[in-house]
């Protein structure tokens, strides 16, 4: 069965990019465009991995992360934060809240991101 990856990100274009890559890798992309929807889809679809942006409509990425990690059913799903916030405080906060990795969008190539994803699958 193909792996399911939930991508919580408000920018549509980025979903498109991942859709193209995942197709080739035979991963199933589940798209959420805001924080609330992201949490709902995590509950519903129980993905194998979650890619999470931090600046999100409706619910901030940090709140989503907290809720995920507090939920015993979802807490062991690996979460990779993929964002443009690059303050050391944000990175520290995300990692201490239970995120497995913290990637900054503009400094990681698609190959590096895919490598990280496969690492946690």
């Amino acid at each position, binding site marked *: 069965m193909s792996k399911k990856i939930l991508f919580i990100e*408000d920018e549509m*274009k980025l979903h498109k990019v991942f859709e193209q*890559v995942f197709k080739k890798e035979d991963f199933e992309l589940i798209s959420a465009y805001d924080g609330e929807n992201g949490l709902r889809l995590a509950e519903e679809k129980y993905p194998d991995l979650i890619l999470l942006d931090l600046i999100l409509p*409706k619910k901030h990425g940090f709140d989503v992360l907290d809720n995920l990690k507090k939920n015993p059913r979802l807490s062991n799903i690996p979460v990779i934060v993929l964002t443009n916030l690059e303050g050391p405080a944000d990175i520290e906060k995300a990692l201490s809240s239970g995120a497995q990795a913290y990637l900054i969008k*503009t400094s990681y*190539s*698609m*190959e590096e991101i895919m490598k990280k994803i496969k690492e946690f699958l």
Partner: protein
Amino acid sequence: MQFLKNIFEQLNFVSQCRKYNIKMWQCPQFLFILMGIVIISSILATDFVARNFTEPEIVALIVLGLTIFLFIIGYIIIKSFERMANAARDKLEFIRIISHRFRSPLSAIKWQLDLLSNKNNLLGSDQSELVLWEIKKQNDKMIRIVNDLLELNFIEDNKLILNPTAFSLKDLTEEIIQSQRENADKQNIEMFISSPPSLQPVFADREKIKNVIFHLIDNAIRYNPNGGKVTVNLENIADSICLSVNDEGVGISKQESKKIFGKFFRSEGSLKYQTEGTGIGLFISKSIIENSGGKMGFRTIEGRGSTFWFTLPISR
């Protein structure tokens, strides 16, 4: 010599005002000179008055009056410094917003270029055309942001150039709605246009007005909830055509209403929760409309939606 020249230049407040594009009473150089003249002449005058009319009460009154006058000038000077400090802070904030605004499309383009150029074949063979098309679209978006920034610069410098012609506002609106259709479909937003069958052409700069309508419709789509409606209304009012764009979004609070046409304004929380938008669209739009002999405004019901409208003169 150079030193003296520098001092003289500093004191030449007329050229200083022109250089920084500020009014005379906002110019510290002018205010300081004015203050100096007032202080010197008041010392002399008080001395003169005190010698010739020796009543201390009157002298005291004169001194009090002059002190109040100096106090007011001091206040104006402080205010003008405050304004400059604010402007500098706004610019910093603006740079932050703009940089963030550019990072999203730039990361998308970066990743898509990765897809196209990598050797490990992250991409199926039939997909490259789609990727190129996406890159092109994001590139267009960034060009639009840069154009807006340049426009802002022209407006601030009072160098906005308009080339008015007669054109149909309805045709232009339909053209823009068509180009925004895909964007609206993604959010399940329906767009409507309503207009009387015959509408006289307006007289304005078509390209600039296109930008204005684009901003209004783009805002209406972005601030609309999923499944909402965007309605563009055209009507003839006296010697002008009024175009209004209505959305069913969250509306604008009273507090925000006052600032909405200001530079760099972004709706509360939009920075935190919505990465789109630069906060200069409405400012540019209003300047363009007012320079074209029209008016621009909005009405809103909090929680129910907003309507932004503008008028343009009919072509004669």
